[in-house]
């Protein structure tokens, strides 16, 4: 354990605090900027890497130095570990932060960084390798007494007619429906749902083939499908001395095709006892794997209020910010300190003590370049208008500004909007308000979807079931879009009026059947008083 330092002044760290002189960020977009921000606050110089598609991107503009690593496709740039290590050596960086995605969970990359005499900001290559194999992680958690989702702990035989009887019997014991999952998997790839024994042999072959092509490893295993279930994950931090703490949990149940859309902390509706037991399970699973730095243990929470271990992600998560807002710590800063061999800070230890009874609630929505009216089809393009919310309890993590192009080559995430308030209800009110202030032009974003969620009575009650998006949202999007189109047509007519001929006085005074204003704050059905106020303000504006 660390010794608790006295607090003689407002300064909480020793004055010599600067873990590294220079750090390279092996990523792009909002997460690269998030890491650069932490480094700047710690007075660490930053080196960005970029592909040709990102030569003028936000993370390149924000860093002190930037190194080109290849053409636009990720496989030829952000996934080229050797080019990134070379860039670090050449630029004099001492450490590499991988962010999330790309190389963050490739043990071979972490090892190459270590072998080059540099520091990898994250778990060691050995723990990434051990936990990246989900089957090995299940075995290790199970041995540590953590309940894992019922299923197999050994690889399932694929295309072995002689062993079909054995695996079918095993499947009967686990129960149908079940999932065939890839040991090296993620994001739903290499996964098949099996409703009956007859489908099993074919599903094993298909999942294994998909896993081999996606991850280079065709190992698959069986897991019971737990439905309905909530997806709850625990943020972990551990130092080199072996101290591991849980900073709190996040509920990420609102997903679409295994992609998270909304995340919140704490998980709504857990008692202090449930939360304590969940955090203990997560720490136990992490300790069994010898984990250090930052990681996340994922669990399913079933209707009988039981937690089932799924996997450990050995990286900084996209949604780490909601935990930061509730726990009041900077996880990236802590990651960098840990990587330099420092013990967990007092600030983190205190936050971990408070984590079972959090006093605030945070919510994050992922604003992506996707069209929610067209099955979330990507909408890369140039952002022409970019108006972000502000005011109390708002945080925006983004890598773009007006004028930037969202390239078609990478993830469509353009900004994370986070809000924090005293409780969930107030945080949702704040989220709705913040979304009303947000305007994105040039590309279609997922904003309409988030606006809908923030006011949906079902979501107010608690996290919805995982298939909620495909049912509820699909039913509601048409009406909302039509109403917006009605106002948009008139705005276009107004914009065109100057070019369409001589102005005449607009003959629209007198009784208006339902006075309303596009461009005024949204919300529930306005009362007569606010309607009248808006109508008066309209009369003061030029028409």
């Amino acid at each position: 354990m660390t010794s608790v330092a006295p607090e003689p002044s407002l300064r909480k760290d020793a004055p010599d605090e600067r873990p590294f002189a220079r750090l390279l960020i092996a990523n792009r977009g909002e997460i690269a900027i998030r890491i650069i921000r932490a480094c700047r606050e710690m007075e660490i110089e930053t080196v960005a890497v970029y592909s040709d598609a990102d030569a003028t991107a936000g993370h390149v503009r924000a860093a002190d130095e930037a190194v080109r690593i290849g053409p636009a496709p990720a496989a030829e740039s952000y996934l080229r570990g050797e080019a990134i290590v070379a860039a670090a050596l050449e630029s004099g960086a001492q450490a590499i932060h991988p962010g999330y995605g790309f190389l963050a969970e490739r043990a071979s990359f972490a090892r190459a960084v270590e072998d080059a005499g540099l520091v990898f900001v994250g778990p060691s290559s050995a723990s990434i390798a051990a936990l990246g194999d989900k089957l090995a992680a299940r075995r290790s958690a199970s041995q540590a007494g953590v309940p894992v989702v019922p299923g197999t702990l050994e690889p399932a035989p694929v295309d072995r007619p002689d062993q079909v009887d054995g695996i079918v019997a095993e499947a009967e014991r686990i129960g149908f429906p079940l999932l065939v999952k890839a040991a090296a998997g993620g994001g739903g790839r290499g996964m098949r749902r099996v409703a009956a024994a007859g489908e099993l042999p074919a599903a094993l072959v298909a999942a294994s083939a998909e896993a081999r092509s996606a991850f280079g490893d065709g190992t698959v295993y069986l897991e019971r499908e737990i439905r309905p279930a909530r997806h709850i994950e625990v943020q972990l931090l551990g130092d080199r001395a072996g101290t591991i703490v849980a900073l709190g949990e996040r509920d990420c149940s609102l997903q679409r095709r295994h992609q998270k859309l909304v995340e919140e902390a704490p998980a709504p509706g857990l008692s202090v006892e449930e939360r304590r037991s969940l955090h203990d399970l997560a720490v136990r699973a992490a300790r069994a794997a010898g984990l250090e730095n930052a990681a996340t243990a994922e669990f399913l929470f079933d209707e009988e209020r039981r937690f089932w271990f799924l996997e450990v992600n050995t990286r900084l998560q996209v949604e780490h910010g909601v935990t930061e807002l509730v726990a009041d710590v900077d996880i990236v800063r802590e990651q960098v300190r840990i990587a330099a061999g420092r013990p967990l800070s007092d600030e983190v230890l205190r936050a971990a003590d408070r984590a079972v009874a959090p006093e605030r609630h945070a919510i994050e929505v992922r604003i992506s370049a996707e069209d929610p009216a067209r099955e979330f089809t990507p909408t890369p393009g140039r952002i022409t208008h970019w108006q972000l919310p502000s005011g109390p309890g708002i945080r925006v993590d983004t890598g773009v500004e007006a004028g930037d192009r969202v390239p078609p080559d990478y993830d469509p995430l353009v900004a994370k909007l986070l809000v924090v308030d005293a409780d969930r209800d107030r945080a949702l009110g704040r989220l709705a308000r913040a979304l009303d202030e947000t305007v994105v032009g040039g590309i279609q974003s997922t904003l309409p979807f988030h606006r809908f969620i923030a006011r949906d009575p079902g979501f107010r009650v608690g996290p919805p079931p995982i298939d909620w998006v495909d049912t509820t949202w699909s039913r509601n999007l048409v009406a909302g879009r039509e109403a917006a189109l009605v106002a948009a047509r008139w705005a276009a007519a107004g914009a065109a009026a100057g070019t369409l001929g001589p102005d005449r006085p607009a003959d629209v005074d007198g009784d208006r059947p339902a006075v309303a204003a596009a461009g005024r704050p949204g919300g529930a059905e306005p009362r007569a008083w606010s309607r009248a106020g808006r109508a008066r303000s309209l009369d003061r504006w030029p028409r």
Partner: protein
Amino acid sequence: MAAVSRAVRVAPIDPSGKALDEGARDLDPKDPTAPSVADLGGGRFVVAGGAAGEDRHTGRIARLVAEAGAADRYEVVVDGWRFELEVEDAVRASLRRRATRAVDAEASSGPLDIRAIIPGRVAAVRVTAGEVVEPGRTLLVVEAMKMQNELRAPRAGTVQRVAVGEGQTIERGDLLVVLT
């Protein structure tokens, strides 16, 4: 100061850049149910009352995206929804529609240009010139943002030309395939 002062026809534009008759409306400021349109400057508008319906919209930016003389195109964002809209004088639009209906009647079997609706990279070309295709047949696979999107034939026909090759980077609106 811009106010809506004469009747116009406003038509949404689909992602490939084509103005759609479906969704087009004639807007007449003299109509008693017409809303009021205020111009706050800098491309910001407030639309209030009448057919604009309930007081629940936010957003409100409008921007000229393409000048085409009599039928300019605007981007408008309301409630997070982004629209591209073509605005045309109503009288002119009605004359033009009458003229094109006559042409359409004889040209419905003419060549059809299939254009890109999103920028990306051509991951695969599944047809060759001269091939006869059924509606729904996959013509190309376009990769954008880690997703593979299949582009399908909107109707039956013969592939007259494939305008792109595998690995090629495409922009929105680029010609991909011509069907006859």
